[in-house]
């Protein structure tokens, strides 16, 4: 049973991530008065990309890409998806926080090798943005860990079953708001879509990726999307015992993200950092103090 879960949960994460990408395109199209592509479109794209031949730009180019994808895949093992949680008892939040850095870092190594100025600008933006949201995110996670007195996600989820969603329990309200404010940045949707801005830097780090490499990068993007939403649902919206309910909760968060995506332009990177380090960080800090003061 455990083995099956180990194999099954990354695949499920990939599937849901790709489905979310397709759904995002469909929903965006409907907001823009269009019919939109079929929901399976990203899957078709991935099949097409895998069958194309493309140039590699060196060993680090390949290794970085695989490293980034593998890092994201490993995270999904630690994240409970309803009851499916193969490795969430070992490790916990700290491991996830550590692994979350591997994704951007691997992309940085990989696209740095391609030696395209657009890629280097894009990757510097990506790392800056990661720095931007890591600070409030860490504060939020600290507040959670202090409030629940544990670092294990499964325990945080099961504790929420008794107390209600942590977003709506008294001392964690502020942290919940801060998390909601940085969620678009973590998902990489507009107004924080600065990394891949096609109109500004020709899709940034992905500029030299083609064929199978782009397929892997797309999968990594899908996984990042999945992880961002799943983490939020687990930490703030009480997770779920049932995978179906968990999925529905994820859908709600996903729609929130897409609606924000549809009505905003993208910010400049300096404006994005300034925003992330001002209000969300302040609120998260206040939330942490609140938790420490009122906590047991």
């Amino acid at each position: 049973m455990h083995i099956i879960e180990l194999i099954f949960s990354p695949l499920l994460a990939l599937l849901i991530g790709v489905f979310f990408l397709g759904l995002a395109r469909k929903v965006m199209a409907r907001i823009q008065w269009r019919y939109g592509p079929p929901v399976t479109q990203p899957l078709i794209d991935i099949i097409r990309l895998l069958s194309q031949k493309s140039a590699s730009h060196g060993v680090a180019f390949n290794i970085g890409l695989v490293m980034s994808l593998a890092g994201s895949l490993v995270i999904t093992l630690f994240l409970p998806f309803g009851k499916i949680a193969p490795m969430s008892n070992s490790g916990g939040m700290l491991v996830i926080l550590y692994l979350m850095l591997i994704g951007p870092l691997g992309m940085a190594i990989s696209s740095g090798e391609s030696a395209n100025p657009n890629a280097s600008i894009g990757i510097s933006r990506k790392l800056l943005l990661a720095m931007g949201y890591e600070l409030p995110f860490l504060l939020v996670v600290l507040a959670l860990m202090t409030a629940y007195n544990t670092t294990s996600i499964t325990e945080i989820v099961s504790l929420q079953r008794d107390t209600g969603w942590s977003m709506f329990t008294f001392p964690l309200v502020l942290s919940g708001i801060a998390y909601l404010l940085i969620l678009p940045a973590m998902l990489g949707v507009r107004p924080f879509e600065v990394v891949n801005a096609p109109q500004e830097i020709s899709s940034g780090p992905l500029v030299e990726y083609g064929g199978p490499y782009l397929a892997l990068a797309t999968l990594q993007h899908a996984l990042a999307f999945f992880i961002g939403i799943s983490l939020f649902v687990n930490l703030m919206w009480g997770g779920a015992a049932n995978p179906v309910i968990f999925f529905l909760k994820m859908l709600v968060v996903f729609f929130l993200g897409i609606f924000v995506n549809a009505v905003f332009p993208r910010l400049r990177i300096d404006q994005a950092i300034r925003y992330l380090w001002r209000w969300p960080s302040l609120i998260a800090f206040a939330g942490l103090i609140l938790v420490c003061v009122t906590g047991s």
Partner: protein
Amino acid sequence: MDRNQLKKWFQNPVKMAHKYSLHVVYFCTGCGIIEIPPSITARWDAERFGIIPVATPRQASLFIIAGYVSLKTLRSIIRTYEQMPEPKFTVSLGSCPINGGMYYDSYNTIKHLEKYIPVDGMIAGCMPRPEAIFVGVTHLWTLIDKDMADGYKRYRSNYSAYRANQEKILGKLEWPPLFPIHGEE
């Protein structure tokens, strides 16, 4: 998706994926570009068929050359085409890439695009309307189905002739040949 299509998906998923996931690098060389925005936006919505514009040639599989090609553009067209991963398809819009169109006596536009890079489909008209563009795309689908959209293979087999033509018009090209040229090995 009708049953016939489903069968095709099972028989040859790669070919079907090529048909329904044409990522386009639009080369806005000319008037043609004016009908591209309507065809990819709300009115005609090319994304229904999986056609979306991408920013770099590496990610693309369809190359749309939208209009007359001036000499300066030809250089970047060749570079872009050679950077695209195979299999790749080329479609040109308008009468000008076919035979020069109304610029038949212009000193700065090339007259026959297919002498410099292989072209899989040419959509005539000045300008082709969005409907015509979609008719062209459906025609390209038929070609892909029948394995006749083989421009990239022809480019490979006739590379020395293509390269000679390119160098004849542009002078010595500054980048190395993509494939080995006959007689030099």
